[in-house]
């Protein structure tokens, strides 16, 4: 079975050390299954019990490539600002774009990394890269960070019961929702739209009697299908009945109300702003409260190749109330230390305005916000060139370093190597922790 396949792009992948470890797992009877039943799950369970670690992640996804200059890395008065201004914040010495006044008041609760770099300047590839921590590579689909968390950490428990609703959720998914990749489609983010609408397809279309008869009929079919086939076909391969059981559990669960924001006080709803994204952030809070492991909320529309300033003013007006209300909401419910809040985007935008007063794609120094989860707050890491000439920011942070930091903080051994279906093990993340944040 163990073929000597060529190694990959990914770091130090040919050393004997990890092969030895891999063989150890194989000899322990976990051959080919270590990516289904990771040992780290047990370790993480231990950590969960002590209650020391944060347990959830919220990703606010600014899709299209948010301009660092109009958000978290302004250079007011400089040649690259083209009139964009900045304001002081609650974090000493940290200024942000003047379109984010409410966030500015809460910058002491988060830290900003201004020197994020990647090698991807195309939306699809860069989104893949930032969501998974790996660059796209033929023949394999890497899991997004939320899928890794759902896979590596035990099923969350809420009120003494295991969670009935999915542990990985994407609100307002774009064309590129978070995926399970080689961990399997069951780790894909569960996708829901604007929380003003109920979650799709969670209500049976027929009365209980008919539903009951349908399930009885299904049993008849499943019994004949199992006849003469692999004995563990359902348990190891199809997982079909299990998925139906889980779907039914979800359909009848009280926890479904976590998606529902109608019952929240009007004042609270207003604070998030009257936008799908704002409502998504409020729903994210409810889901995290219920123990969901990772929620991604997408705000589309940052791809301002034309008229950058106007576009960003609109986007900031949606982001600002939602982000700041979410920080407040997490703190009010005493969830801030339990939850890492990440505001990310696939790349930044060019320091120079183009002829249509837009900014183009710029992966050479863009901004990501990190807060909560016991991470150090109130600081700014890295620095981009105020003249916009240089594409190598000071104290550069790679995309995968953000992954390593978040995973580590949530109790995942990110150097752990998972078996992949392409026959070679890959570390969960190849990044390095950002020590300034820990």
């Amino acid at each position, binding site marked *: 079975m163990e*073929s*000597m*396949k*060529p*190694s*990959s*792009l990914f770091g130090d*992948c*040919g050393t004997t050390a990890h092969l030895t470890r891999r063989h150890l797992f194989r000899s322990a009877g976990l051959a080919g299954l270590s990516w289904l039943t990771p040992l780290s799950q047990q370790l993480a369970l231990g950590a969960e019990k002590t209650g020391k670690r944060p347990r959830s992640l919220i990703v606010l996804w600014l899709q299209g490539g948010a301009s660092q200059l109009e958000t978290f890395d302004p250079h007011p008065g400089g040649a690259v600002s083209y009139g964009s201004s900045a304001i002081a914040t609650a974090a000493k010495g940290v200024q942000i774009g003047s379109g984010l006044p409410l966030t500015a008041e809460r910058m002491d609760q988060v830290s900003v990394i201004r020197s994020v770099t990647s090698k991807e*300047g*195309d939306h*699809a590839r860069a989104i893949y890269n930032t969501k998974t921590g790996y660059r796209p*590579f*033929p*023949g*394999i*689909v890497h899991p997004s960070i939320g899928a890794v968390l759902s896979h590596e950490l035990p099923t969350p428990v809420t009120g003494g019961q295991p969670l009935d609703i*999915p542990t990985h959720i994407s609100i307002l998914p774009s064309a590129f929702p978070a995926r399970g990749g080689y961990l*399997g*489609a*069951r780790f*894909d983010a*569960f996708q829901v739209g604007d929380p003003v609408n109920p979650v*799709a*397809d969670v*209500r*049976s*279309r027929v009365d209980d009697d*008919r539903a009951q*008869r*349908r399930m009885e*009929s*299904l049993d*008849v*079919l*499943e019994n*004949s*299908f199992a006849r*003469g*086939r*692999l004995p563990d*076909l*359902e348990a190891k*391969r*199809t*997982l*079909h*009945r*299990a*998925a*139906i059981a*889980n*779907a039914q559990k*979800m*359909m009848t669960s009280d926890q479904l109300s976590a998606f529902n924001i109608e019952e929240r006080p009007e004042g609270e709803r207003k604070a998030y702003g009257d936008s799908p994204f704002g409502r998504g952030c409020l729903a994210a809070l409810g889901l995290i409260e219920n123990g969901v492991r990772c929620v991604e909320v997408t705000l589309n529309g940052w791809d301002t190749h034309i008229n950058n300033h106007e576009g960003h003013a609109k986007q900031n007006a949606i982001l600002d109330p939602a982000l700041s209300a979410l920080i407040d909401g997490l703190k009010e419910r005493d969830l801030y230390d339990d939850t890492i809040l990440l505001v990310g985007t696939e790349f930044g935008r060019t320091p120079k305005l183009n002829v249509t007063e837009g900014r*183009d*794609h710029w992966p050479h120094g863009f901004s990501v916000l990190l807060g909560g989860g016991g991470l150090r707050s109130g600081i700014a890491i890295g620095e981009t060139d105020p003249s916009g000439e240089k594409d190598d920011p000071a104290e550069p942070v790679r995309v995968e370093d953000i992954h390593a930091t978040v995973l580590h903080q949530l109790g995942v051994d990110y150097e752990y190597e998972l078996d992949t*279906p*392409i*026959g070679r093990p890959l570390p969960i993340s190849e990044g390095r922790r950002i020590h300034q944040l820990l």
Partner: protein
Amino acid sequence: MESSPPPLPSQRFRWLRAFLSLGLLVIALVLSSVVISRSLNRIEPEPLPSRVIPAEGLSILERIDREFETAWEKDQIESAPEADELTLIRRLSLALTGAPPSLEEIQQFQQLPELADPVQSWLDHLFDDPRYHQYFAERLARAYVGVEPGPFLVYRRRRLVNWLAEELAVNRPYDEIVRSLVASEGLWTTHPEANFVTVAIVDGDGKNRPDPIKLAARTSRAFLGVSLDCMQCHDDKFGDHWKQEHFHELAAFYAQTEMGLTGLREARSREYEIELLGDTEPTQMSPRPPFRTELLPDIGSRRERLAQWITHEENEAFARATVNRVWGLLLGRPLTSPVDDIALEGPYPVGLEKMANLFRRENHNLQGLIRVIAGSTAFHRASASDLPESPITQAQEQAWAAFPITPLRSEQVAGAVIQSSSLQAIDHSSHIIHRIRRFGETQDFVKRYGDQGEAEFLETAGTIPQRLLLMNGKFVAERTQPNPIMNSATRLANYSPSDEAAIDAAFLATLTRKPTLAEKAHFASLLSDKKGKARERAMEDVYWALINSTEFSWNR
């Protein structure tokens, strides 16, 4: 398994309805006789490629089978029984058209003369079907260009797929197809095959050139079955075989290509330079194939020479890569995994070399290859044993002594729901409304069910959204709820001569098989004594169970 003749309907009105529906059936038969006779004319088996069945001795098909059987004997693996004919045509229709056969097609199939080889006859039928051209083109295109929308303005994926579909329709030799892709010139609009190259143009870098590294990676995986791109940054760490240079010498074939006003062209003076690991200065790389360098022609542009080399009759790697992929598309799992990573010097999986050699000698005939794979003993194995007390084992599946159970792709599940809700095949000759509805709703369904993109053979299952979508979704509900014009469930409920006949037809339309006795007894009881709307709703429930079963969403 043999079904008993349907008992007589117990009620007088049932008898009357049966009489009327028989009358309707006769009319329908008369009306469609022209179509059917045309189809039957099509179902004249075409001869296999000349060398498949030589005048004497074992045919090549028999020799391929013998190789599997010898391997099973050696490992003391018993082979699963022969799959029944309906199962075989279900597998073929799903693999080649993305949907199971319609009830009408099944009836046509059952009228075939006894002597005809069912698999080969069914392939004759499918190879003429535009659903095969479009669907198989889409599956192949995933290996060539992936599924991403690609660079704006210079790339249209749809055009590439349509072009490929036309090539498949005339069964153009596969080596010619691949040469067109690799050596394409001109604009992506007038030369759709050029999209293979233009997809690699880097958006917004101002150079207007395809990235040689991306193209070399695609080329080595899709056409050579070698994952050379791992050597992009370093030498092979697991063996001495590959060096970083091998990959970049391949990439150098694409280094002169650029986009001009008249489309793709070659800038013959540009050289390819790369900084190798550990070097501080870039090295100039000359184009050189990673192996079998003696097959490279001397004349032509770099891409023309590469295209000739890839598809050279003596280049076994090209044939192996194609056989492994087409095998995977037909059986749900390639002969060796990953599909695009075949060890250059072996050992090869059972069957691969013989099929690859045949493919090379037979002018890279793609339909011929599909016939050989579909004719193989492995394709004909059942996925279940006849004896419940000794079920199929992992070892049997691994050795192809039993047909592997694999999940249907999202578009196949959508195709199956749509097809099973209609008695006739939903294809190019269907009403435009059907087709538009099919296209739009399929897109939406696939998005929500989850498209695995180019990860063709990634096994994914057990997701809650997939189940919710089929259990409670509009897509299934609209196709099974009472609707005497559109939905087969309602029509079968109203016009079948008996409860049992309705259940038989529902099983054939959804699962392409007759019900077992136990199944028939259970499901017929749901219909018995029900009339009007209650009967239509009962049939909707029957369809619901069939569509939500494991069997519906898995290839067996």
